[in-house]
């Protein structure tokens, strides 16, 4: 092959990826860089945004305990949501995987179907069922005398975790499902022939092998929950804020864009660090299973 052709070949991948690369830079990297820059600008009630470089917003976030509490709440909700989806989603995927043909596809549709419905609609569904005195379930339980006052759901962290877990469940189920597909179909029979009972098989053979799937599902659910907006906005409103709803408020209600940008940037950095860190841990821990 001539040197010219070789050079052209070397350039081809770049030329071919250029459009996607430009889109990536244009709509993701540039706005991101601008947001980071914005977080260092100044803002005043009357003077608006001033393009200077100061640490005012960052100092405010670092010193005011309000922000610490809000970030702590964000991650607490995300962690609890992740635990709930793992606890329910992993057995769900396992049971689903053991079902036969027709039932399997039917229940897979039931689990994945909600992905087609807007998060807003699904969260409003929870609000209609449990929201205050008028919530359907609350009314029913109260008329039956099971409870005397409505179960608190709106504006509570519990409500947010439950609604978020419902929204995030398909991601966990899919992730565990993918791990289950990699299992040798005879692996349970092999363990059984060696004398293992059903509990031992799940604990010693299945769980260790689907753990990477559970953990990667957990990373997806955690990062989506920590940065979720719609569900916390509907359940928590402006009373129970998380990082995403706070940033939104700063941008659109207070109009303090620089402070909102600082909150958003901090959330992003925290998430990236957590995801990269746990990913590295998982890969090291489960090197043998992944290979």
């Amino acid at each position, binding site marked *: 092959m001539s040197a010219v052709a070789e050079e052209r070949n070397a350039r081809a991948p770049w030329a071919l990826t250029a459009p996607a690369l430009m889109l990536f830079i244009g709509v993701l990297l540039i706005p991101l860089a601008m947001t980071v820059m914005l977080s260092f600008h100044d803002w005043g009630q009357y003077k608006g945004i001033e393009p200077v470089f100061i640490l005012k917003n960052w100092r405010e976030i670092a010193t005011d305990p309000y922000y610490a509490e809000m970030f702590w709440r964000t991650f607490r909700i995300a962690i609890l949501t992740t635990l709930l989806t793992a606890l329910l989603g992993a057995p769900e995927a396992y049971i689903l995987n053991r079902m036969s043909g027709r039932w399997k596809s039917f229940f897979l549709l039931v689990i994945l179907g909600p992905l087609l419905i807007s998060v807003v609609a699904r969260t409003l569904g929870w609000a209609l069922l449990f929201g205050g005195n008028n919530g359907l379930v609350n009314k029913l339980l109260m008329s039956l005398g099971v409870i005397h006052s409505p179960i608190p759901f709106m504006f509570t962290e519990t409500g947010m975790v439950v609604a978020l877990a419902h929204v995030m469940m398909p991601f966990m189920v899919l992730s565990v499902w993918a791990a289950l597909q990699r299992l040798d179909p005879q692996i349970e029979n092999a363990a059984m022939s*060696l004398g293992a009972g059903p509990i031992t098989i799940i604990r010693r*053979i299945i769980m260790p092998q689907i753990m990477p799937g559970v953990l990667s599902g957990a990373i997806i659910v955690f990062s989506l929950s920590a940065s979720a907006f719609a569900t916390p906005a509907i359940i928590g409103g402006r009373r129970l804020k998380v990082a995403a709803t706070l940033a939104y408020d700063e941008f659109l209600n207070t109009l303090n864009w620089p402070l909102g940008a600082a909150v958003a940037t901090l959330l992003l950095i925290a998430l990236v660090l957590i995801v990269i860190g746990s990913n590295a841990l998982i890969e090291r821990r489960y090197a043998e299973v992944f290979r």
Partner: protein
Amino acid sequence: MAYLELDRVAKQFGAQTVVDDFSLSVGKGEFISFLGPSGCGKTTTLQMIAGFLDPTRGAIRLEGKDLTAIHPAKRGLGIVFQSYALFPHMSAAENVAFGLEMRGVPRADRAERVRAALAMVGLAGYEDRHPRRMSGGQQQRVALARALVIKPSVLLLDEPLSNLDAKLREEMQIELRQIQRTIGTTTILVTHDQNEAMSLSDRIVVMSQGRIEQIGTPQETYEKPASAFVSQFLGKTNDFAGSIDRTATPPRLVAGSWSAPAPAGLNGAITVSIRPERIGFGEAGLSAKIVTRIFQGNHWLFQCESECGPAIVIRQNDGTAQPAEGEAVRLAWRPEDMSVRARASA
């Protein structure tokens, strides 16, 4: 008394009968092969013995006890799967130790038996390797050690060598045979490879479409095939249409211009089955013309067009002159080398 006994076992999936009327007695220490084309029900039969499938009809007994009443985890059989089904998150030693652990063997004892089992399959020093970091042949050995370490009453092997390349497969065949001879475990091997079945087993069960075609030693099934299927499946063969004439005195068997005294029993239309290496070129016999002649080192392969249809002849390359292509020859064989069965007359 039979050690393992299958009595008219059948398996249906819905309306489809996959195994039917399967009866077999296996002696203690015997090496049996289930041989048949893919989809003939070999795995299904093996899984019924293992307990992963319940027979629709029939009984399976081990030392006279009903095996189907025992949970698969309690049967104490050793099984090697086609995919090996090793536990990927455990090291070789942990894989082998698993069955002992389930049996509550004390730790020190366990370590010793695991080491011995791995050494037996030639994997001493590989204790801490994980399956995904081993070659196919090594994984195969771990699977074998894992099945044998629990001292199973019967060892079940489902196409254990089919994922290995030809050379490794041959090595493993020899090794498998030696190990089985040494420890004397009753073994059932499922395979679709006739060479594998013949070189390993004491007896072969030839299967077709869920039914047993023939049970016999490798030599019996090869030399006295009970059906057209068996003779076709076990190597190359020639089938010539012939007939038995009982009116002649003495009665004679005739195939084209070849004839011999008739065997007892049969009458009318028959099929003569004769292996290509048992046919010689003679003065009298089936007249044929040589179409192609292929030299294969230690033997010659002739494809002929005979008066009874196409014929294959294999002659040892013993230095004697061989007929050329296009030459007219007479094909002859000793009556005791052929097998004769009734033919549905056209």
